[in-house]
Structures are given as structure tokens and as C-alpha cells.
């Protein structure tokens, strides 16, 4: 077999599994724009707790807490979390209200790569707040079927 052809063939085989579209910082910005519209989120009031160094990207604890009195007049309406490099930019969107008492939401997420996580919070006055965190992942989530 032609050596060049063989090399090209193996290259194709190697790169096919990597082809699924991944979210990019642009895709994340686009997803955020869908939520905030023309408004610009202000940094602050939001605390995004996620470990800075993660060994296993399959389960990464993440907590978003917002400094808000959670009253009828002033409360958090929604918390959205986005990522840059997973196949899709959205992680979750949570809906809260004055009944929540505290604007704290915790969950566990998957990360396919080292990347930046961004939380966008919508308050009852129609304003948007944000917080970001960089996470380094040493073993990415779910690239293959687990053994």
C-alpha cells in the first residue's frame, strides 16, 4: 500500500472521533446573549463555587450563590450556568422566586476540558449579574464508554 495513502487513512481514522462540534467561547457568548438580550451583565453579587483543579471531569461539584434578600420586591428570578468547551454551551437554568428564601443552587456537572464557567443571574428588577471561574480538568468527562 502507498505509504502516503496509508498515513492519510490513519489520520482520518484518528481524527473522526474528535469531530463532534464543541462549544466555543463564541458559542457561550451567543448562548448568554440569548438570555440577557441587549443588557450587559454586571460582575458581582454572584458567587460561583467550583474547584479550580479537578481530577475527574465526570462529576464536578458546582454551587452558585447570590447575595439577595429574596423578598417579593427584590429576588433572584433565574440562575443560568454556561461553559466554553463542552459539546454544548448550556449547563443548567434554574428558576427561583421569593419562596426560595436563599438564592443558592448546587449540583454536579461534567466538564470535557479545562475551561471557563460563567454564571448569569437574573434579578426581579430585570438586571443581570455574572461571575466566572476557571477550572483545570486533568481527566475529561465521558469521551468514551466507561469500562
Amino acid at each position, binding site marked *: 500500500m502507498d505509504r502516503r495513502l496509508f498515513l492519510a487513512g490513519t489520520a482520518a481514522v484518528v481524527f473522526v*472521533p474528535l469531530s*463532534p462540534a464543541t462549544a466555543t467561547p463564541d458559542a457561550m457568548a451567543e448562548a448568554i446573549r440569548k438570555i440577557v438580550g441587549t443588557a450587559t451583565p454586571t460582575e458581582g453579587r454572584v458567587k460561583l463555587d467550583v474547584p479550580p483543579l479537578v481530577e475527574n471531569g*465526570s*462529576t*464536578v461539584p458546582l*454551587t452558585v450563590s447570590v447575595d439577595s434578600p429574596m423578598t417579593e420586591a427584590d429576588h433572584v428570578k433565574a440562575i443560568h450556568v454556561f*461553559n466554553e468547551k*463542552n*459539546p*454544548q454551551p*448550556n*449547563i*443548567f*437554568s*434554574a*428558576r*427561583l*422566586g*421569593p*419562596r*426560595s*428564601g*436563599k*438564592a*443558592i*443552587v*448546587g*449540583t*454536579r*456537572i*461534567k*466538564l470535557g476540558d479545562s475551561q471557563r464557567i460563567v454564571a448569569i443571574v437574573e434579578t426581579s428588577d430585570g438586571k443581570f449579574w455574572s461571575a466566572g471561574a476557571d477550572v483545570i480538568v486533568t481527566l475529561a*468527562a*465521558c*469521551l*468514551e*464508554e466507561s469500562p
Partner: protein
Amino acid sequence: MSNILVNAPKTARRGAVIEIKALIMHPMETGFRPGPNGRIIPRNIIERFTATWNGAEIFAMDMSPAIAANPFVSFFAEAKESGTVVLRWTGDEGFVAEQRVDIAVE
């Protein structure tokens, strides 16, 4: 069917803010991974989690494939009156699961 683990106080003082933690067994298959035969395993995730207190919604969450397998959610709620909290998960392939928790408010 599915295994659910909920952690919430059985009693609460009126007006207290309580934490409710919920864990459900679910693969949260992303739809981006090839299986043993090289084909992509079809997506199978929980899309939505809701919590109601005596019928009124207190918390809702739209999930994506980026939520880890066996989704865990913790959130807070103000205890206003005794009643039943219904946690409900819905998702792909007609997945529905429900768990009721009774909370007495004094």
C-alpha cells in the same frame, strides 16, 4: 424503576429557610459518546426537575447533558405551611419520576 434519595427536614419552624437535596439514579447519557460498537449512544438525559410545595412551584431547573450522571440538586425553600413537597424529574424516552416529602411546619 429509579432510585431517588431526598434529604429534607421533617419539621421546620414557620418562616425558616430549609435546604432540600435530591439525588436520582440516571445515566444522563450525553448523546456525544461512542459506545463499544463505535456508534454514538443516543442521548438520554433528564431535561427538567421541578419542586412544588402544596402545588405551588418553588424551584425548577432545566438540565443539559453537562449535568453529571445521577443528577444531584440542592436548593432552598421558605417553610410557610405544613404540606407536601413533590419533586418531579422528566426527560428523554418518556422518563418520569416523582418523590413526595412531607414537611411539618410549626
